[in-house]
C-alpha cells in the first residue's frame, strides 16, 4: 500500500510535505522543465516587495565548503509585475503557490498581505522577517520579538489565507521569536532562513561579496537548522516547516522527526533542479519500504 503523504499547514492541504524554498525556485516557471510541479507539495516564490527591488552589486554569490553565501539583496519584480507577469503561470499548475514577501514597515507588510490575499492563485503567504541582506528593513523585524509580533499582527489582520512566518536563525533565542509570532496570529513557522556569514579573498585582502556579508545556505547549515526546528517545534503548537541544507530524502525525514510538518528545499535545486521532486519520491519510498502507513506518524517522533 502507498503511504499517506499529505499534510496540512494551517488551512493549506499539501499532497506531500516537500516544498521549494523562496529565492531558489524563481517564480516556478523557471524550473517547470525539470520538475513535475504536481509531484511536489507546494512551491514558494521569490520574496516580493511593494516596489521592484534591484538588489545588491556583484559579486553576490560565492561558494564555501558544503554551502554558498548569497547577498542578492532581495532583487524582485515587485507586486505589480508579479500580478501581471507571474500569476498567469501559477494559474496553470495544480500545485499550491506560496508567495514570500517583505516590507520596510509594518504598514508595508500589511499592504502586501492584503494585496496577496486578493490573488486567488496565491495559496498561502510566507512573511519574510529574516532577510540578512537588506540593511534598513528585514532583519530588525526578525531579531526583536516585539517588532516581529507587530509585523505578524498587521499581516494577520490583512489576510484570511494561511500565514506562515519565516524566522531568522541570526538571533540569540529562536524560541522567543517563534512564540512571539505564534502569539500574534501566525498559522505556521518556517525555520530557518540563511545564517549570516562572510568569505575573504586572502590575496586581494578583501571580502569576496560586494555586500561584505551574505546568507549561508546548503548542507553546511543543516545541523543548525535541525536543532532550531527541534527547539521551535517543542515550544509552539503551530506546524513548523523545516528548511536548511536539505539535499536528500533522508535529510528531509530527519527534519520531520525533529518536529517539522513539512520541509522546503532550497540550494539543492541549484545543484539538481529536480531535487524537490526526487526528495518527495524518496521519502515515500522510504516509508513504503518500512511499512509506515502515514508520514504524519513521523512528525516529531524523535526518540530519547
Amino acid at each position, binding site marked *: 500500500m502507498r503511504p499517506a503523504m499529505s499534510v496540512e499547514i494551517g488551512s493549506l492541504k499539501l499532497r506531500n510535505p516537500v516544498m521549494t524554498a523562496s*529565492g*531558489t*525556485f*524563481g517564480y516556478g516557471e*523557471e*524550473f517547470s*522543465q*525539470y520538475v513535475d510541479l504536481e509531484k511536489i507539495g507546494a512551491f514558494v516564490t*521569490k520574496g516580493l516587495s511593494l516596489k521592484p527591488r*534591484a*538588489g545588491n552589486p*556583484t*559579486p*553576490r*554569490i*560565492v*561558494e564555501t*565548503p*558544503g*554551502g*554558498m553565501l*548569497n547577498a*542578492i539583496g532581495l*532583487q524582485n519584480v515587485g507586486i505589480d509585475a508579479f500580478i501581471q507577469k507571474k500569476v498567469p503561470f501559477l494559474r496553470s499548475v495544480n500545485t499550491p503557490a506560496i508567495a514570500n514577501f517583505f516590507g520596510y514597515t509594518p504598514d508595508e507588510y500589511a499592504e502586501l498581505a492584503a494585496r496577496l490575499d486578493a490573488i486567488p492563485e496565491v495559496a498561502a503567504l510566507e512573511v519574510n522577517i529574516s532577510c540578512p541582506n537588506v540593511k534598513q528593513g528585514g532583519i530588525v523585524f526578525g531579531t526583536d520579538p516585539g517588532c516581529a509580533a507587530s509585523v505578524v499582527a498587521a499581516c494577520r489582520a490583512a489576510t484570511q489565507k494561511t500565514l506562515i512566518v519565516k524566522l531568522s536563525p541570526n538571533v540569540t533565542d529562536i524560541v522567543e521569536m517563534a512564540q512571539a509570532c505564534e502569539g500574534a496570529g501566525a498559522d505556521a513557522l518556517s525555520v530557518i532562513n540563511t545564517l549570516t556569514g562572510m568569505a575573504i579573498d586572502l590575496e586581494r585582502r578583501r571580502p569576496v561579496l560586494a555586500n561584505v556579508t551574505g546568507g549561508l545556505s*546548503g*548542507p553546511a547549515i543543516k545541523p543548525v537548522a535541525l536543532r532550531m526546528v527541534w527547539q521551535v517545534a517543542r515550544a509552539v503548537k503551530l506546524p513548523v516547516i523545516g528548511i536548511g541544507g536539505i*539535499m536528500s530524502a533522508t535529510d528531509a525525514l530527519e527534519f520531520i522527526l525533529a518536529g517539522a510538518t513539512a520541509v522546503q528545499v532550497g*540550494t539543492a*535545486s*541549484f*545543484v*539538481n*533542479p*529536480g531535487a524537490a521532486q526526487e526528495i518527495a519520491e524518496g521519502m515515500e519510498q522510504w516509508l513504503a519500504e518500512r511499512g509506515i502507513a502515514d508520514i504524519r506518524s513521523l512528525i516529531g517522533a524523535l526518540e530519547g
Partner: protein
Amino acid sequence: MQFKAMILDNAEVSPGYWRMRMTAPPEMLAARPGQFVMVRVNPSIDPLIRRPFGVFDVGTLQPAYTGAAPQPYLEILYRVVGKGTGMLSTLHDNDILDILGPLGTGFEKGPAGEEKLIVGGGVGLAPLYLLAKELVKDSPVRLFAGGRTRDDVLCITEFERLGVECYTATEDGSLGECGLVTKVLEQRLDATANKGQIFACGPHGMLKAVAGIGAQRNVPTQVSLEGYMACGMGACLGCVCQGAEHSAENPDYRCVCTEGPVFEAAELKWEGN
C-alpha cells in the same frame, strides 16, 4: 535539458588548459554558439554548485564499424583555476558527469557575406569555436586571439582548419604581435574602413576595450560575459550584470544566464568595474 555524459577524452592542450569531449544526447547538437552548460563536477557536496562552461563544440562521431549508432558529443575547453576545474582535470575516459544545458542566449549571426571579426582572450576562445564554425558557412571570418603568453593562445590550428584567418598577439611577445590583441583588431578595422561585426569573449578588461572600439567606430559588437552562477536558469539572481542605464537610483540589472551570456556591447555599462 539535464543529462549524464560519459567522458570520451580529457586532455591538457596547453599548460593549465584542458579540452574535454563527452557523450551527449542528440538534442545537444542544436546548441547555439555562445550557449553554455552547467557541469556538476562530482556527486558529493564539495564542490557544491555547478560550474558553467561555454560550449566549445558539438558534433557527431561516426563509429568505425558499421551497425553502431552515431554518437553525438559535446566539448568544453577549460582553464584550471580552482577546486572545481582542478577536479575536472583529474577525470578520465568513461567517467560520468551530470550536465545541464544548453543554457542561455547565444550570438546573433548577423548578415551573410559581411566580414566577421572574432576576438578571444585566453579561455575566452572556448565559446568562439562553435561560432566560427557557424559563421564560416556564409561569411569571411577573422580571429584575433590574445593572451599573456603563447600558452594562453589556444586551438589556433582548429580555427585555421575551418578556414578562419587567425591573428595572434601576446603581452610578452612570445607569439604573434607583441601587445594587446585589440591593437591588431583596430589595424584590421582601419584597413576595412570599419566594416563588419565584432564578437568577443575573454577577460573583462579586454571586453571593455573591445566594446569601446566597437562604439567608437560604430561597428556592431556582441560580447559574451561571465557571472558567478549558482543555478544557470534565472532563479538565484546571482549572475547579474549592469545594463547601460544602470545607476543607484535607476537600477538596471541583467541576468547573465538567461538574458545573456551574450549581449550587445552597447546594452551594457562599461565604466567602473
